[in-house]
């Protein structure tokens, strides 16, 4: 419960971040959700009762209505008679791939731009950061929509689009930190020893940024999962019939009164996954980020 100065000091000595994550109930819950999702995604073919692409003739009523959850179809069927549960499990793959790949690219781009601009002043800084400002001023979703409209969307294109939109924040954060780090005495000391820019950037500044980057990467996964869902919700995400949690909702959104399970079950899945990443990210921030320490 109560943490002290001494404890925070000790924390750095005790490198087992995972162990410390596990001690926090919320973070633990988040980790469990993430693990379950990852396992579900990896072992999807063995877990699902049905082929997620198969449109069962008996999956629709005679009138063509989807079936509510029942013994055969645990989460009911969708509007073309597919098993919702199987689609959700496969949809986890999409969400995770996007979350990890898109966000990974965003993190790499953002970190590189931020760190470079933060350390090198002058025109490098100006050019990169003005560009970042520009991207900042872009309404992100609008940009994503336009990009998605230009390129025929597919899993990878969607990932790229999200990456193009999402690197900005991390670039800003990394920039600010890299800037203040490069003014710190230990960087000055490094320069006084004759170290080159590459060494200072990657051996000294980068390690200090790692915790920030890790935290933003985790939080960013949550954002990314949500953005993919939103793009899919607007019908410009991953192409059907590949299931993604967002496009399941997109396909079924108008049925929220007549077949609410088709909207609210995948909605709950998105919420749970985003929440899990946010919880873990936040806990990591507490554990890794010295400026945030002792806030609980």
């Amino acid at each position, binding site marked *: 419960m109560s943490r002290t100065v001494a404890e925070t000091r000790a924390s750095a000595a005790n490198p087992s971040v995972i162990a410390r994550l596990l001690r926090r109930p919320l973070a633990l819950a988040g980790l469990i959700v993430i693990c379950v999702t990852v396992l579900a995604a990896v072992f999807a073919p063995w877990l699902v009762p049905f082929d997620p*692409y*198969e*449109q069962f*003739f008996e999956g*629709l009523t*005679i*009138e*063509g*209505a989807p079936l509510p959850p029942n013994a055969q179809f645990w989460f009911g069927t969708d*509007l*073309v*008679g597919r098993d919702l549960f199987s689609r959700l499990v496969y949809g986890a793959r999409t969400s995770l791939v996007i979350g990890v790949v898109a966000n990974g690219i965003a993190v790499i781009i953002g970190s590189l731009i931020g760190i470079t601009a933060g350390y090198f002043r002058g025109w490098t800084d100006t050019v990169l950061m003005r560009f970042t400002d520009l991207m900042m001023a872009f309404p992100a979703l609008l940009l994503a929509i336009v990009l998605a*409209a230009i390129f*025929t*969307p597919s899993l990878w294109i969607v990932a790229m689009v999200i990456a193009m939109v999402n690197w900005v924040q991390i670039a800003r954060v990394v920039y600010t930190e890299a800037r203040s780090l490069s003014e710190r005495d230990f960087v000055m000391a490094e320069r006084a020893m004759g170290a080159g820019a590459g060494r200072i950037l990657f051996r000294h500044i980068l390690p200090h940024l790692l915790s920030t980057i890790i935290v933003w990467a985790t939080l960013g996964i949550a954002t990314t999962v949500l953005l993919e869902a939103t793009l899919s919700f607007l*019908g*410009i995400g991953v*192409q*059907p*019939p590949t299931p993604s949690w967002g496009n399941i909702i*997109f*396909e079924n*959104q*108008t*049925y*929220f*009164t*007549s*077949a609410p399970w088709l909207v609210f079950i995948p909605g709950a899945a998105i919420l749970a996954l985003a929440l899990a990443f946010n919880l873990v990210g936040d806990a990591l921030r507490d554990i890794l980020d010295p400026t945030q320490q002792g806030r609980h």
Partner: protein
Amino acid sequence: EEIKQGGSMTVTYKDDVSTLDPAIGYDWQNWSMIKSLFDGLMDYQPGTTELRPEIAESYEISEDGTVFTFKLRDGVKFHNGRALTAEDVKYSIERTVNPETQSPGAGFFGSIKGFEEASSGDADGLSGITVVDPHTIRFELSRPDATFLHVLALNFAHVVPKEEVEKYGADFGKHPVGSGAFKLSEWTLGQRLVFERFEDYWNAGVPKLDQIVFEVGQEPVVALLRLQNGEVDVPGDGIPPAKFIEVKNDPEFKDLIIQGGQLHTGYVTMNVTIAPFDKVEVRQAVNMAINKDRILRIINGRAVAANQPLPPSMPGYAADYKGYGHDPEAARKLLADAGLADGFDTELYVANTDPQPRIAQAIQQDLKAIGINAAIKSLAQANVIAAGGEKDQAPMIWSGGMAWIADFPDPSNFYGPILGCAGAVPGGWNWAWYCNADLDAKAAEADSMVDPDKAGEREAMWRDIYLKVMEDAPWAPVFNEERFTIRSGRIGGDDRLFVDPVHIPVHYDEVYAKDVQ
């Protein structure tokens, strides 16, 4: 019995109304609104596809079918109070043809003499239109055109007052002034429009309602929920699939649902220039692979299976034609005959609005059953249209959402741009890139048969053309959509008015409010 005038009706739409300029408006939402605000020489009998004169009192067609002379009614006034004359009719059509107007309908007037010069901007007006006297106007055509009366019933031929057009310039579409049964009294962009009865309308007793309120930006589902609450009278976008079964089974509403045909066909195009769709066997196999019954079930049975381009209510429909039945076995054999026993990979383009992607997925599954792996490309409608207009882009397109709905009830309307050689050009609408010179010649021949007595013969010719098309199978027709609409209990009128083939979703001029009776 006499129907009393008065009362108000609320209609909702999802999309904003783009323009009410008759020369420009060309979507099925503003189409009928414009019809109520403006009048043309010709119109249809309410609820049917039968032509009748509107502001024309009478007309004469010359023997060779190239000269049409119209006599105008007396007492037709614009909403601004000025009397409508033949000059206005001439001005309006010339305005549509004038390239600066950018009218999408200019091409319909291609048969009028002087069209080439006028549409290229070389001439100011159409030499083929003559104002004989303020009440008489004459059209001379460069070739016989059997559809010309239908063309004059199009919105693009509706009459606008020159002075108002010039006053508002490019914004005329937001300040429409016509001679129709209603006039626009309020337009709050993005929110609502209000139509009010035009007191001086030439046709006494029309319209029945005093006021129509259009609320835009309303999701169809929301509109229906509000209709169930008694806040809305007609959901302009129809009954959304999501609510269809519910209202159909609801004793309170099921009697208010009206069903009617539409001049619509939903089809899959196969690009005959892209292998392997250049093989007729493959195209036929696709026709046989599609399980239309399942697709109908997915859309809650709101359509009938189609087997030819023309919809059943169109003259020229081949009622006894059986088409390609659902037969995956045979389809697989055809593929094997074409040397594709192992199937192949291809792409199926589709517009990204519900329910189109769902239908595409059903087709995808059917194709898979005969070994064709079609990846779905679900894009914004405009991008699908763009892909269709490129020769080597889209192997297959599901037409839903962008499908052909006839401009007027004539078989020719389903041929030229979408199956004829003229449409098989970059940027054209013939997404199958099907071009059969013989059939084009036959079509031209049929269209020059103006004589009303030969109508039956002309119909037979067209029927023949479409059956020939089906032999080559550039399309796989899937279904003809049935319109299902609903109205609130307080709105009355013949059922046919609510599924009027041209006045979609209702014939605004003719329906009435029960509560003032």
